[in-house]
């Protein structure tokens, strides 16, 4: 019996040691493999920290200081407010092709750093407005922001006006109380195209009527139908015809009555004659200008069209009358 136990122990002991040894080796291999796998990420994170403003990988939770994409990279992330459900999803792929791919989320969403949950910003400011006007805090966009604030879309309204007076004046004109912010025109969907992104710039030009029409200049968007400008633009040919801002200006947009406005009478020769447009523009050519937004009206008031319209109405009325006789009978 004893000899049997010795044999067994002798057999077990070396095997136990062997098993432990295997385990140790396996552990080392696993550690090495794990280290190998983790090394690029660690290296990348180290590099990323060093060049945080030029390279961004939203897939890394610890990267970007906020790790927003951990939640906002989920396509199913929505916000329910009353009966409205809005997506809170941010497409990393879209961000990667945008002009701001190197920027941090908190570069625009300035009040959101480290706050969780963030139903409102720390100081109670509307987070969307903060994000949409965050361009002003970037030195690259200072000139554009300066132009914007001196134009008709300035949040300041008319000099001397209070914010509430501005809102009331805008409401009286049928405009939304809030002025358009940078993000309202330049897309708040995280897809602001870079200057080199031809397709993105084209897509942006195509959205001119949507951007300027939308809730604000709907009538002007609808009546932009003249032959060589509006009709072509309405058919979605952004580089074949002028977008709204080609004539009305980009950031310093002013009402036509303002002498500095691109569409003020005194500036129309330059506006129509700008590079890529008309050549040899003089005063006589400007008689076309009202037609750009006025063709529909001229067509409607044409006597022949008025005649046809009255005939059509008359025939339609007669048909309705005759039809009604049969309906009665």
């Amino acid at each position, binding site marked *: 019996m004893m000899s049997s136990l010795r044999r067994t122990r002798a057999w077990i002991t070396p095997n136990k040691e062997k098993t432990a040894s295997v385990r140790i080796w396996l552990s080392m291999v696993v550690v090495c493999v794990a280290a190998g796998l983790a090394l690029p990420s660690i290296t990348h994170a180290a590099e990323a920290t060093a060049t945080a403003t030029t390279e961004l990988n939203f897939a890394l939770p610890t990267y970007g200081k906020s790790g927003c994409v951990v939640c906002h990279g989920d396509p199913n992330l929505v916000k329910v407010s009353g009966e409205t459900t809005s997506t809170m999803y941010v497409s990393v792929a879209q961000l990667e092709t945008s002009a701001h791919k190197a920027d941090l989320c908190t570069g625009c969403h300035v009040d959101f750093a480290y706050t969780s949950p963030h139903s409102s910003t720390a100081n109670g400011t509307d987070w969307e407005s903060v994000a949409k006007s965050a361009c002003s805090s970037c030195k690259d966009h200072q000139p554009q922001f300066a132009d914007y604030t001196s134009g008709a879309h300035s949040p300041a309204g008319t000099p001397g006006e209070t914010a509430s007076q501005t809102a009331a004046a805008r409401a009286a004109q049928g405009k939304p109380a809030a002025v358009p912010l940078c993000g309202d025109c330049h897309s708040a969907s995280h897809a602001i195209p870079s200057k080199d992104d031809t397709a993105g710039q084209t897509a942006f030009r195509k959205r001119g009527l949507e951007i300027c029409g939308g809730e604000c200049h709907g009538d002007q968007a609808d009546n932009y139908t003249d*032959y060589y400008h509006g*009709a072509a633009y309405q058919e*979605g*040919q952004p580089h074949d015809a002028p977008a709204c801002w080609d004539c009305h200006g980009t950031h310093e947009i002013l009402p036509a009555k303002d002498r500095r406005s691109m569409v003020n009478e005194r500036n129309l020769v330059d506006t129509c004659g700008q590079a890529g447009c008309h*050549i040899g523009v*003089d005063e006589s050519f400007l*008689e076309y200008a009202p037609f750009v937004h006025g063709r529909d009206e*001229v067509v409607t008031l044409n006597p022949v069209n008025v005649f046809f319209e009255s005939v059509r109405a008359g025939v339609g009325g007669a048909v309705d009358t005759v039809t009604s006789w049969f309906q009665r009978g």
Partner: protein
Amino acid sequence: MTLTTLNVWLDVAFTTIYPIMLIALAAHFTGNILTGRAKRRFGKQWEWPHHDSHPPLLPKMLHFMHVFSMIMLGATGLLIRFPQFNRTPMRVIHYVFMVIVVANLIWRLWYAFASRQRDYKEFVINKRDITTAPKVILYYIFIKPSKPHLGKYNVMQKGTYSLFVPLLIIQAITGFMLFRVGIPFVDTSLYELAAGVIGATGIFWVRTTHYIVNWLFIIITTIHVYLSVTEDFPAFLDFFGMGGLDPNNRHGDHEEHPLDDELAPAYASVDHAQ
């Protein structure tokens, strides 16, 4: 009247005239039916004007290219002015057929005036054409049963075909003045050169003229196609290579003229199709 109002008037006028013209052509064909002309022509009698010879092959080919190009130019021209989709492919097609039509015009003018077969005399309106013009008109409005046969074309045909030449030249010149494609090796285009001379307003007038002539071509071509089919269907088929024209057929709605028995001039009797 401002340029803009004029342009709207032109749209209104032409888009009103064209349907009215189509109705008038339908009414005319009804006249053909009521007077029995249609039955005599398209029925068993197959009674069509006689031809001294088959139309020569070269002008026939030029005519075919011209018709197709003009249809394409008219359609793309309207789609450039009234865009229904991307104008760029319309412009490309317009430019391609513009080159074909201009080349065609030069070729046809050479054929008419400078080639061995020069046939310009067939298009010249002479004194007898003018004196017999009322009879031709009366024939077309069904008052007279036949029209005088003085040559290959009647006075109205001669007038219309001759009108095509200046209209084509006007259209070519105005078209080149609107041509924005850059000239090779020169950093400019014909449009830029023209606009530099006549200014933006001048270019607008050029564009308006081009538009008017485009509509004239559309109207004239439509009438031409209608009359070709209803007045001389065998020749119409022959022009499109489908045969059907018999030079020996001496029937038709034309008065036999003493000159009919004279020998046809050389330019008319050469049968190039053989």
